[in-house]
């Protein structure tokens, strides 16, 4: 699942495969701004049926934090 999620993030951001990993921090990825963050959360639900709770979604600062939220 982690691979699928990372692939989805790269796809939504329109960046090369392999640019993102579990340790990536959002602020270090130029394309990952607040608008794209919303899109990522939305597409996770739409394409992979992963629902990230609204209030927590906004707090996430890294891929790792996002994964932990999803993994519960």
């Amino acid at each position, binding site marked *: 699942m982690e691979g699928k999620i990372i692939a989805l993030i790269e796809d939504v951001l329109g960046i090369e495969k392999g640019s993102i990993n579990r340790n990536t921090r959002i602020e270090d990825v130029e394309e990952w701004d607040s*608008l794209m963050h919303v899109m990522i959360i939305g597409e996770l639900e739409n394409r992979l049926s992963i629902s990230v709770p609204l209030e927590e*979604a906004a707090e996430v600062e890294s891929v790792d934090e996002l994964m932990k939220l999803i993994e519960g």
Partner: protein
Amino acid sequence: MKIAVLSNINMDLIIRKLKGAGMEVLPQEGFGNELGRMLDKASSYSCYAPDITFLFTDVLELIDHEPSERAYESIDKWFNTFRNAIQGKGLYYVANAYVYGVEKWINPTGLMVEISGYYDRALKSFVSSHKNVRIFPYKQIMEDLGESVAINTKTFLMGKILHTTKATDNICTEIIHRAELEERTPKKVLVLDLDNTLWGGLCGEDDTTPILLSDSGKGLVYKNFQRVLRMMKDNGVILAIASKNNEADALRIIEKHPHMALKPEDFAARKIGWFNKDESIRELSKELSLGIDSFVFVDDSPNERKLVKMNIPEAEVPYFPEDIEKLPEFGLFLYREFFEKPRLTAEDSNKAKQYSDNVKRKELEAGSKTFDDYLRSLGTVLKKVSPGENADRLRDMLNKTNQFNLTTRRYTHEEISDVLNDPSKTIFMYSARDEFGDSGIIAALIAKRSADEVSITDFVMSCRVMGRRIEYAIIDDVEDIFRSEGVKTVRGKYVSTAKNMPVEGLYADLGYELVNEEKTGLEVTKDYIHKLNIIPDRKYYVNWE
């Protein structure tokens, strides 16, 4: 070309992607208040002055998700404000209504459906009275994808972003396509092969290989392809045939086969026989009086395509799908790639018939003893029409006529309305019909008056009616009118282009006197003068309505 995207929901991603695709687009400054930004002459939108504005109104948001009587008022108010917000120049695309979400399942045929229908009717009537406003097929894009793929509730909750990345991409593609349509010259004639193109298999060998055209399987694919072509024909695309067959065998299928969606009269002209296809296409171009650069040739055989491509580089020769199940989509590709126009006029729906009428006229001509006999037997009737009510067609003719165009000036929407409102200018427009059919509006002439002299600054006529001396009748009419108003002199001008050779001698034929001739590079300009006290005897066969 500068564009703007305005909406009552968040379109930031769409704007961003359009920019990424190389479009010049106004940056988003929040959303909502889209009409306010248009009305405010000092807003960034007004200063930016886009060539095309795309307006997306989320109807549910507009009516605050409340399908009550008040919803109708909100819609009326929106269109009234929009009417005041649009300026003379610029084009506007307004999205049609798309209703989504769980609410629509509660009373699925109730007021919500009513209201989105009401919005669409209001939009349609608005568009019919505003020539610079068009409908953006938003609902079609969303329904093509389906709500579960196109809409994202989560992003809407987080930032009023309604569309998924997939829907965003498709909306961007359509915006770019619409912007391109405004600038390109559409093709006119689709020349089709028969065997393995309109039906499967080879005709004439039906004892051993019955052709594939039916109501199921591959036969249905061909029938569906024909249905797409028929729809294209009904919207102004001229269909013609160039095929290598025994004509009688092919005609038997075209006329009698129960699953032919296309009927013999749907083809404006045909060349069926054992001729080379490049020659057939040249013949069709002559018969239809249409430049070969407005032709698109479709054939399943790569050899035929190669031959035509080599010998007629001006014609478009697209690929042919390997997988014949893709034929109907290929039809749509042909339409969007070559023929689609930003706005269909009444002329377009009649066009195909007008061209097939023309082919019949040529047959009559071949059978007439003299040219004068032929012209008399045509029974041409001319009628004057109002330029103000046909401004669209006026602009179309001025901008697209190449052959019968004396000065080849092109006009923007704004310039057209300037001419219409200029008291020193008179615009003459004419429609023509004869015993073979109605050709619609076929000619326009603009004359500028100063004291007792007028100058014909523009004179265009559709190539469909060239060679019938209709232009003689028109000039007689124009001169009569000005003579009765006390005008003494008419000036005419010819400016040469690569395509308007056919009218180089027009003014001389009309009895005008050449007073000046200038050459700059390849361009020749000729100025003519005619005294209205001289009434030339011009021979033509036209009745006036």
